[in-house]
């Protein structure tokens, strides 16, 4: 980073080759050395063999998105360079074509470019004999016979070669590697360190003089942590006192349930793997009625199955669940390991009939934490399902961020009933109230016996089909949304980044926050002053406030990761304002900073048709 603001490092290889370990170790090492990292991963729906890659954007200051270019590429196989040319139908071109001029590639000399493969004269090619390096290290431990089995350590060679080339602190990296092999794996620590050292020395001796970029330690980590969205959500659930987490395995949501279950000993949360998402959402609702803060996490296909349950939660005024919806490419199985923001309209409307619900879209890991925590408060306060809608990009990307501030977060369990002194029956679970909220008892509470039904019911919870009761009860339920809209702080509803009177107002929601913020910062250096209106609370939608903010700018550009411009439509519906300019993307990949910047510039030139961005 001696001569540029960002260094983009990438490692690519077949799935199962351990690119995660290399990338996450490097992230930690950079963070410990005072650098900032934004890291994101792309992978196939496959267990072993298909191409995956992990990209780190390393900078002296905070970064919130990825760039299109690659400065230093570690290629564990030929496919990483030139694509899946071995298949009858080539589906990607690898990463050679993404290399920045002057960039470098560390590749396995035993699995590198073949004669006739595309090449780049402006990219330095550094062959690394992965097998020989591994053999040398293994020889020190008399384990050279295991070279086949231990090829899994090629990822460490890739990491080592990168560190050697960049001249980064090898001792720091050694410590981090050793930390990663504890307990049962402790015996492997020395071997991994030896492999790392050999690879680093090899690259330093042979290539460093012909490569200008260096990565240096700036200082300590400043207390920062490397955080992914799923960890942020998991921690929020733990802090909020979520007692039951239900799930059915689905990418990319399952990691969060695993996170909670693996920390069950210290922070007890019952984590139940269900037979399907129908059961997952209903079990959580059942637990909510019984007084436990309950949650489920899923992706689009699972959320589709939950629709019925959300309606039942709505009419029975269950104090939950909190549903975390990690969007991925749809419909149906769609692009199961890829990114999209196309479930938002569905999240707003899933299930038949009308009932109150809250839908909120955090923009990054920090907002995932805060929003998920508050979601439990809202679920209990307004006795309705709360959907936190995020996506694969937020779920799986790492950012180096300050630790969460928790001092202002308070658990609010809403209006709980007072047991009658007499202990007598007659509790009205669905009592008509002005703000729509009826005090709730929990299954098991003495004096709190109630009935509930997915049929329309009276204040006691018994089935009643009268028109008069229907009007009163439906109005009562829906009034809770009016109450929520009044009580939820405006700071949780939307955020205006930058001055309201900027020339251009970019509008977005969810994980486009990162690339939009990075892009408008870059645009400013190019003479385009832009602000960013980030919509967070999508239901109840703060229509009046958003209309007022939108009116402060003359030119608006909507950025979202779907085909239809779903939230653009929502804005028009709720505010009457039609944002004509649209930058959208639906290729299963998240927006990069570059794509947002280019898209905005395109739309400023001409709004005749939306700008469709697509990776490579």
């Amino acid at each position: 980073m001696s001569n540029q603001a960002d260094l983009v490092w990438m490692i690519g290889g077949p799935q199962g080759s351990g690119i995660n370990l290399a990338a996450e170790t490097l992230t930690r090492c950079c963070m410990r050395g005072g650098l900032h990292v934004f890291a994101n991963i792309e992978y196939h729906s496959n267990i072993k063999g298909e191409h995956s890659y992990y990209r780190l954007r390393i900078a002296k200051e905070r970064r919130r998105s990825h760039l299109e270019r690659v400065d230093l590429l570690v290629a564990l196989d030929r496919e990483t360079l030139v694509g899946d040319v071995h298949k009858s139908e080539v589906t990607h071109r690898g990463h050679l074509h993404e290399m920045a001029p002057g960039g470098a590639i560390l590749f396995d000399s035993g699995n590198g470019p073949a004669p006739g493969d595309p090449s780049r004269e402006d990219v330095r090619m550094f062959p690394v004999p992965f097998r020989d390096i591994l053999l040398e290290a293994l020889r020190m431990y008399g384990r050279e016979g295991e070279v086949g089995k231990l090829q899994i350590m090629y990822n460490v060679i890739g990491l080592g070669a990168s560190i050697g080339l960049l001249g980064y602190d090898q001792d720091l990296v050694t410590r981090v590697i050793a930390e990663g092999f504890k307990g049962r794996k402790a015996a492997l620590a020395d071997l991994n360190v030896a492999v790392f050292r050999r690879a680093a020395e090899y690259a330093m001796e042979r290539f460093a003089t012909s490569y200008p970029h260096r990565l240096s330690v700036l200082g300590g980590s400043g207390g920062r942590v490397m955080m992914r969205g799923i960890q942020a959500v998991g921690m929020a659930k733990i802090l909020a006192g979520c007692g039951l987490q239900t799930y059915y395995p689905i990418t990319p949501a399952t990691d969060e349930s695993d996170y909670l279950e693996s920390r069950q000993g210290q922070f007890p949360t019952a984590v139940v793997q269900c037979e399907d998402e129908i059961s997952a959402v209903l079990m959580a609702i059942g637990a909510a009625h019984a007084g436990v803060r309950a949650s489920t996490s899923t992706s689009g296909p699972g959320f589709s199955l939950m629709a019925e349950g959300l309606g039942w939660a709505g009419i029975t005024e269950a104090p939950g669940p909190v549903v975390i919806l990690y969007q991925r490419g749809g419909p149906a199985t769609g692009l199961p390991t890829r990114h999209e923001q196309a479930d938002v309209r569905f999240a707003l409307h899933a299930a038949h009939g009308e009932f109150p619900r809250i839908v909120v879209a955090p923009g990054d890991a920090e907002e995932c934490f805060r929003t998920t925590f508050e979601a439990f408060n809202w679920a209990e306060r307004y006795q309705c399902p709360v959907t936190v809608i995020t996506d694969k990009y937020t779920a799986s990307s790492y950012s180096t961020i300050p630790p969460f501030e928790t001092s202002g977060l308070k658990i609010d369990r809403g209006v709980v009933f007072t047991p009658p002194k007499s202990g007598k029956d007659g509790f009205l679970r669905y009592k008509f109230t002005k703000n729509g909220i009826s005090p709730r008892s929990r299954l098991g509470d003495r004096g709190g016996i109630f009935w509930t039904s997915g049929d329309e019911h009276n204040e006691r919870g018994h089935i009643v089909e009268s028109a008069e009761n229907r009007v009163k009860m439906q109005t009562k339920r829906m009034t809770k949304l009016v109450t929520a809209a009044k009580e939820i702080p405006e700071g949780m509803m939307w955020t205006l980044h930058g001055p309201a009177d900027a020339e251009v107002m970019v509008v977005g929601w969810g994980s486009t926050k990162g690339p939009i913020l990075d892009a408008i910062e870059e645009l400013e250096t190019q003479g385009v002053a832009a602000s960013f209106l980030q919509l967070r609370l999508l239901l109840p939608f703060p229509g009046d406030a958003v209309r007022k903010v939108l009116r402060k700018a003359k030119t608006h550009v909507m950025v979202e990761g779907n085909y239809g411009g779903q939230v653009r439509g929502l804005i028009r519906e709720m505010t009457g304002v039609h944002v004509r300019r649209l930058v959208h993307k639906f290729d299963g990949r998240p927006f990069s900073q570059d794509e947002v910047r280019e898209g905005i510039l395109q739309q400023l030139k001409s709004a005749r048709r939306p700008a469709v961005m697509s990776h490579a």
Partner: protein
Amino acid sequence: MLKLEEVKTDVFNDWCPGCGDFGILSALQQAIAELEVPREKIAVFSGIGCSGKTPHFLNVYGIHTLHGRSLPIAAGAKLANKDLTVIAVGGDGDGYGIGAGHFVATGRRNLDLTYVVFNNGVYGLTKGQSAPTLAKGLRTKSMPAPAIVEAVNPIALAICAGFTFVARSYSLSVKHLKATILAAIRHPGTALVDVLQPCPTYNDLHTKEFWAGADTPDKKPRWYDLQQEGFDAVVRDPEDGGEVVRKKTAGVMKSLEGGEREPVGVFFEWKTATYGEQLAARMPLLAEKPLAEADFSGRDLTPLLAELA
């Protein structure tokens, strides 16, 4: 022991006159009254259909859920509060048709709850379509044509799915039914009580008279009590895998027996670790108190953040 009046509600009952549901309701009320559990510690969950209204007639926590979905909601409540006595009720279409996936998963899980299925062979509330338990070739009066799919065998299905108490009774034999329901509730694990019952409005084949055997030469009921004939359904040594297999096999065989008379009573009973007990082994907190009573406030995330430093 509660008075029977204490477990009834004043809600108007709109079931058809002569419905088998009344027998089941009566047995449930008696069982709850005898249970020696405070009313507020009992929660009854139901699905959709005539049987779905059952909780409204019981003066305990009553949760009327969705079609086929009573079991997962009941399971959530049990997980949240292990001190609750959880009873789910529903029709055969609800449990063995639309809810079949949950039925199987509930058996596998073995939470301590009881499922009472109102088995009358028809979808009553939608006016008499064939239900999963109606045998192939049969045609009740409101069906345009005979059923051309096989009936499900709920007893065999339950045993194979992992229910640890599997029984059957007859809705108008209230004494036997009450005793069976009580045994099911007291069984620590997931219990099924499949209840044969007439639907006087839509099932003109399996009527009260049919079950009473009025048309048979010896006028004997079309059901007999397994236990009176000496059938031993109980696994005596819960750790003996061989015995478990033998008792399961015997129960399944019994359910497949066929013939003029249906066996009722307990087909299989095995006291083994419940889901709750196994969860408590991982989460000691659960052994102390229900999740719903745990205080999770004031947690410190420092160790979790340190993992990511």
